[in-house]
């Protein structure tokens, strides 16, 4: 696991969009943060692997159910950064 350096919502959003764009093989600009995960057409394998990658960059566990609680990328950003220990005060990149 990497150091538990808090990421800003901005960074998490960029990361999610880049990861999803890569899985869908589209340009990042084509992925809106209002996109609903379920409508992206990602397989359950892709989603669980994205969860594993998120754990790596956040340096902590992400429950496998979190995507059920977060319909959109924006919801996921809020969820992932709100429960981040030192959260939004951290400096952005």
């Amino acid at each position, binding site marked *: 696991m990497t150091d538990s350096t808090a990421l800003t919502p901005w960074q998490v959003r960029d990361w999610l969009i880049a990861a999803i764009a890569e*899985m*869908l*093989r*589209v*340009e990042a600009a*084509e*992925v809106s943060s209002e*996109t609903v995960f379920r409508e*992206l*057409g*990602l*397989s*359950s*394998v892709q989603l*669980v*692997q994205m*969860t*594993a990658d998120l754990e790596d960059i956040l340096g902590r*566990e992400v429950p*496998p159910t979190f995507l059920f609680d977060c319909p959109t990328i924006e919801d996921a950003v809020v969820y992932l950064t709100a429960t981040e220990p030192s959260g939004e005060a951290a400096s952005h990149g």
Partner: protein
Amino acid sequence: MTSTVPTPTQTSVPPLLLDRLRDHARASPDALACAFVAEDSADGAEEEQLTYASLDREVRAVATGLRAHLAPGDRVLLLLPEGADFVRGFLGCMRAGVIPVPAYPPLPVQSRQRVETLRSIVADCQPRAVLSSASDEDVEAICGVAPDLADLVWRRPAELLELTPDPAADHPATADGVAFLQYTSGSTSAPKGVVVTHGAIAHNLAMIAAGFDLDEPPRMVSWLPLFHDMGLIGNLLYPLWAGGSSVLMTPMTFLKRPARWLRAISRHRAHVAGGPNFGFDLCVRRVRDREIEGIDLSGWRSAFNGAEPVRAATLDAFAERFAAYGFDPRAWWPCYGLAEATLLVTSVDPRLAPRRLTVDRDAFQQDLVIPVEVTAEAAAPADDITTLVSCGTAKLDRTVLIVDPETGGPTPPGRVGEIWIGGPLLPVGYWDNERATEETFRAVPTEGPQLPYMRSGDLGFLHDGELYVTGRCKDLLIVGGRNHYPQDIEATIEESHEAIRKSCVAAFAVDDGGEERVVVVAGAGQGAVGPGENAAAKRAEIVKAAAVAVAAEHGIQLHDVAMVGPNAVPKTSSGKLRRAACRSSYLAGEYAPSTPTEQTAHTEES
């Protein structure tokens, strides 16, 4: 007639699984039988273990609980994840003489396809009870979408463990008694339940043991689903029959972090571990060095690879990636099997690297096997050749025939034909389906041995006595008198445009007034799906790229390319493409708007 073993010989039935389990419980009560890797365990550590003595006691307790409601021969649906409850539940049913029917728990119930599959299994085998470890809430949800299940007896295996085992619940197993029903994936039609007898299991387990040829009881680590034959027979029943141990994790545990499987293999010093080809690809792609620091894979004797085409490129990439951790390429154990043969049919020699055969691609597309000599200095152009990996030979008294599927007659050497499987102690048929049983399990070749064979529906050929599996009969595309394997066309299309999703392309034939035409349904990412001019323009671009690539690579003009969201391409629960279902949906007009390639792509006849 080409045949691996020309004359089947009489064999006695190997010891039955239930008898072996009781023997192991007496002889080595404290030996590890099963261990279960904790969900989301960081280092592949095990959370729960069963010795042979505790397994024996629990299995008899479950049998006692079941016999309170059920008579021998009743069916029991198993809706259990890969874990201790599955093992207790499955073996408890067998011990009680009731027939377990493993099925995929349809959770979450939103998955329409899983629910439909479950409902057709229930309608087919008419179970009287369900073993499940789901919460009350989930049970209610399942019964909500599959009302036929609501009236059945629901039991949790864990609750039955409290019972004192009653010897009267122990139903003596016989070789021809039904042990369980294995529902096939339903890649081509509605699910069919293969009737597997105790004798068929014992025979297949003895074949597997002969194939691995280990000098000590096997230690195995598995991530495969247990409601499929490869996970259930190969990864659970085989080590238990042989007095070894099985370490199980759920497929999701592996898929999230494939390193957990490798770590568990190292930790458990496993001799045997494997799965379908894509699992090895996933390890190459996803495992990071820091996740597997210090692991030792040098004890891995047999890395079995089966259930989907074995790719030479995968074997090479995996062996190279994990060589530094002690992986020995001679461990590769490509194999061929199917539920209709209990599990294993053929496998390679456990001590040698599997043979490869490079053949002329054009000839191969016409079912002709013309080996091509490939040397490092003068390699043939990659476009002209295809490299195949051997799946080895049948063991014991199992036989393999290659038969012309149209005539039922022999296929000359060097020609692809349908794989027919013979010899004693095969499954006896499909549950309550005499017609399909007759067609599949009682085929007699028009020449040669007048014995019943099981028609696999798979295609292959024998070369130097070894079986090479090349595809499935029903999916074969015949265009202009030439055979094309849909997998090949799909692979070309996957590579033709970056927006096309891997493993979400289906190619199949439609009859266009007497002529077969090739239609492709391709799943694409966002930006190419839905209304709007941009999406339509993107679709046209993808369709053109796909049509050009297929024309150039295979010399086929695509009749139609339907662009859909990736989830619209139907697959089985194990992720296998369901081409026939995709074709039906296409013919029913479910993939509109379609874009005839004639309007968008103009490629020259080749």
